[in-house]
């Protein structure tokens, strides 16, 4: 992947390891060779199961890793290497460069303070905005995220708001800092489906209107495809497939991506059997020397167990698999011939 000067966020060959002081073993890998880039206003989805490294990737991007973690590779925000930022630069980056939205807003809002205090604190303390002006801005942003009667909400406490409402408050707090990048970690997973659709609708509109870049983490592949332009499928600390969301359903090539697509039941038809992937998802530290997916893959051969696959260009995406030509040889030619 060549260095893109216009990239908002660029991660190049990021490897994160965690040392275990209790054991003499070599540090355990959490992420291995993550490379991705995000343009201003673009939305990129990170999709995967437990232990795939989705959250770890954005924690690395904000330098929120555990103290015993070692980082290799580069993470650049607007061209500046995040891993080498000094104290003030890092603070500025976290204050106004990047905003984060988490799964459980209740865990990230002080329950003893009013919504108004939560929303205006950073403006007043860090940016020297007057209290009255800060309150006015907070009320305006609440309106923007679809909250009626903002003045009343500002006087309320977190427990008086529903989970969906509180997630909007969380998004409002991020917007007040006017970041160029939003990192959203399962922002709708704890919400009812109708509320989820409203919240992703809001995120989507803000991204378009304000040109904010967004990394959207989810376990729900279809949700990622709906919200993001490109999607990275992660497994055991690696990106195994990265391609445009619009044609992932038709052109997915990695056996794991195909497995994920087959695992989800459809709302339209009942299938006799879902094409379940055997075994359970692995973390990077559990995988052997070869392809981390080899022990669950129906196609795996000797090379898969010994040699880690490098990303290759396939059907206009980047895919880490040794066997793409074999797996997709005949049907691909027929389908692509038919489509062209």
């Amino acid at each position, binding site marked *: 992947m060549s260095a893109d000067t216009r990239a908002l966020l660029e991660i190049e060959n990021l490897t994160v390891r965690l040392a275990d002081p209790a054991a003499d073993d070599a540090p355990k890998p959490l992420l291995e060779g993550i490379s991705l880039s995000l343009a201003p206003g673009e939305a990129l989805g990170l999709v995967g199961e437990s232990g795939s490294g989705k959250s770890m990737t954005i924690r690395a991007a904000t330098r929120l890793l555990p103290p015993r973690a070692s980082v290799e590779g580069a993470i650049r925000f607007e061209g500046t290497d995040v891993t080498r930022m000094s104290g003030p630069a890092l603070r500025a980056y976290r204050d106004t460069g990047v905003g984060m939205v988490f799964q459980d807003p209740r865990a990230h809002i002080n329950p003893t303070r009013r919504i108004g205090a939560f929303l205006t604190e950073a403006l007043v303390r860090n940016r020297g905005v007057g209290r009255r002006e800060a309150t006015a801005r907070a009320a305006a942003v609440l309106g923007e995220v679809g909250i009626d009667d903002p003045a009343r909400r500002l006087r309320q406490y977190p427990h008086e708001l529903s989970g969906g409402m509180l997630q909007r408050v969380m998004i409002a707090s991020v917007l007040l800092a006017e970041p160029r990048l939003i990192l959203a970690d399962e922002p709708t997973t704890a919400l*009812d489906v109708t509320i989820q659709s409203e919240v992703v609708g*809001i995120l989507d509109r803000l991204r378009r209107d304000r040109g904010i870049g967004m990394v959207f983490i989810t*376990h729900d592949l279809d949700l990622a495809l*709906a919200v993001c332009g490109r999607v990275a499928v992660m497994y055991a600390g690696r990106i195994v497939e990265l391609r445009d969301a619009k044609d992932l359903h038709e052109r997915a090539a990695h056996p794991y991506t195909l497995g994920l697509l087959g695992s989800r039941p*459809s709302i339209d038809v009942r299938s006799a059997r879902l094409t379940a992937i055997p075994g359970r998802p692995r973390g990077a530290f559990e995988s052997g020397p070869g392809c981390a997916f080899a022990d669950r893959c129906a196609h795996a051969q000797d090379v898969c167990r010994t040699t880690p696959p490098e990303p290759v260009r396939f059907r206009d995406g980047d895919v880490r698999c040794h066997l793409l030509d074999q797996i997709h040889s005949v049907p691909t030619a027929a389908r692509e011939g038919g489509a062209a």
Partner: protein
Amino acid sequence: MSVRDLTKIFPGRGGGHKAVDAVSFELEPGGALGIVGESGSGKTTIARMLIGLESATAGSMSVLGRDRSRPARGAAERRARARELQIVFQDPYTSLDPSQSARAAVDEVLRHHAAGAARAARADASTRSRSRSGPDPRSAPTKATGPTSGSDPAIDTRPDADSNTRPVTSPSTNADPRDARARQTRLEELLDQVGLTERQSHARPRDLSGGQRQRVAIARALAADPAVLILDEAVSALDVSIQAQILNLLVDIRARTGIAYILISHDLAVVRQLCDSALVLRSGRVIEQGSCADILDNPAEDYTRALRAAVPVPGWRPPQH
């Protein structure tokens, strides 16, 4: 199962909160009913009333013609109800005993029901006019009861060790080695049915993954040989690939055993995969009910349509405001 006008009012200000409002449904033997709704719709309260964790304010519930609207009287009735209805919860980590291996957890239920059945049979056959409930029914599930006095259930379940070491002091209790063998066979069958390996069956919950723990919870529920199994968001917390495995497992079990399911879920695709009929709940009231395909393909109510439209599917775009 038949449920009529089931209602739950939690006491509180202004007449309390009506969590479940006159819900009625029927479930035929071997059927599968999905109860769909968002948070606060009353789905879990219905499940809790069905299994007797919560009393109903009004209405009736029965399984196989036996009423369960009131609390069970005595252990025998509780056991009988347990054979009618079992439940698997969303989080198997909090519903399994952390100190008990998978094997022991399942065997405990088998032994409990075997002991109960034996006692009931004895009471029926007995010419002496002993109380039906025996000395103390509540001691039945504990390991100290009966001749199988070994403290480690993993040892108990080995038929050889069992028959050789068992003191034959009370021949009238369930000491028949054939029973122990039958139970052992059933234990292996259940563990095999839910796809737990030998090694996993000896592991404790903390050493198992979420999917494996849910397999233990399912095996434990099936051990009572219930007519109906309630699955309360039982696949919601699982990783996508594991969820598919458990869904396939549940389809297989139903096909093989003829068990009936009540699936409580917010996930319409999961309901479609597993259920024949469905009811949509909102604020404790049934909004719509009928066959699963009808409700999802041709929803009659706006609320059902909105629920359906909010599900991300291929080609779905978030709503623009």
